[in-house]
């Protein structure tokens, strides 16, 4: 179960990185990319938060 959660967390981070890259590619649109950048940042943060929780649980199990 922990492995599945870790995979999902990594997927969320990858999605966030993908969206961030897409947004930065179209940075000619200026201000319009800001909500997308924040969305990507939130996804990366959520993924990182979940991974930190998983690591904490693993440390607790040892």
């Amino acid at each position, binding site marked *: 179960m922990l492995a599945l959660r870790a995979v999902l967390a990594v997927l969320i981070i990858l999605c966030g990185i993908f969206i961030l890259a897409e947004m930065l590619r179209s940075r000619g649109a200026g201000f319009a990319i800001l909500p997308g950048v924040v*969305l990507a940042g939130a996804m990366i943060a959520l993924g990182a938060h979940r991974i930190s929780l998983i690591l904490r649980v693993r440390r607790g199990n040892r």
Partner: protein
Amino acid sequence: MAAHAKSAKPELRRSVTPWGSFSWGYSDVGADIFVGLGLVLAWAAGASNVAFLFAGVVYVCIGLAYTELAATYPVAGGGQYFVMRGLGDFFGFIAGWAVLLDFTIDVTLFAWSSVDYMSQLIPALVNSVHPWLHFSVVLGLVLGLCLLNVIGVRESTAFNGVVSALDVISETLILCFGFLFAFRPHLLIHAMQFNWPTPYALMLGTSLAIVSFVGLESISQAAQETQRPASVIPRTSIALILTILIFALAYSNLALGLQPWHPITDAAGHTMQFWQIFPNNADNQGKAVALLAEQVPFWGAIAALYVPVLGAVLLLISSNSGVFGSSRIAYAMSTSNLLPSIFQRVHPKFRTPVISIVFFSTVAVIELLFAAGPGLYRALAGPYAHFFRGENGLEFLADLYAFGAATSYSFVFLGLIGLRLTDPLSPRKFKIPLNIPMHFRGERVDFPVIAIIGFIGIFSILIFTLFTHPLGRVFGPTWLLLGLIIYLVYRRHRRLPILGSQRRDWRTVQIDILRRSGELELMDEYLANLKASEQRQAARA
């Protein structure tokens, strides 16, 4: 609530797990996007994602504030309790009374929207087609929930968990399919560049966007029933805050940049963008997520069938949390002598706070009558159009919802600052980042910069609400005034200070809170802090 009634010293059973705590919050806040998306798209148009972004940033600040407060003071009173401890009884009452407005609106707004989602599968329930049937079903739901709460039936944490899990999976699938197969960045950029709203519409849209983030009271309500709240609440709250923020931003971006699976045309046969179906169409505004889901390629064929049902169920759970929450907050306020003791009265057979439930359900029904009035009686449409800029029922409810939330959250930020200054000794296992260390009354305190940023943000949303919502401008302050009259009469009757606070020994209270929550290490830390503080004071003397 039954537990409250059974003993003089009521105590809720701590049986909520981390997932239970997450799903409790999610079933409350997660439903908001089902209501907020259509309303924001209708007003903020090409800037809807920016409106969600602004409200989302404010929401993150609010979420962090609630997380810190709920983890430090794990009691069910919520915002009013934090404000009462930080700023005193009078402001605690105002915050609590504003939250009560939100809970009563929650009942009506979410029952209304639940029926709107049902109307996607049952066209007879469309409000503009059969307003009396729509009204009757919403009224039936409100009265039904009232009755269920009187006899003490409440959805279980397990049921919340299942619905929340289904919704998270469903929304993720919709967004994945939407972004993979139907999202066109040029449509998003075109909408933002050529359909940017007027400043007035943007303010209105932003104030409505906060509707998508209301319900953080559930974090503190869950705190009292969560095992080891100081450890669990921060973990689940941060996941909840980020999940809700991601969904809101993703939906708004997708809606603006969506290439509809089935072409959408107006009456003249011109092709429309997806978001253009919302302005001036209250029926569509009430079921935006279902409409978006069916326009997502491939998955939309399945989503069109189940999303209306899932949305309706999630909204109904949220509506029920309004009935339950209002009675619980009123009970907590009453035990703190902020409201008359009649709100503590329990039914002799069902052991539920029947007076509170019936009182606030009646308020919800009155709000429903105001919201449905122009649709039911065409004669009322004229005065509404004249005095209230022709707002529809859903907008009226959202106005008041935004007003209540902005008012109570503003005070919660001030309460957080107050508690950081007046109660620096309570151990804070989670502390909002960005603090300025300083000394206050001989103690080292951390002044929270985020609380100032959040306060400015939510206060500006309150100003937007008052400026752009004619109905909210009238009914919101009227609600507060009514509450203040009740408070004044009650406090005078009990010979309690009106602007001041009743004497309470918060240190003893805090020790008791930590002991009951099972946070014994924190209790020891608190006792050590108290001892060290006394020694410092003695040394100074």
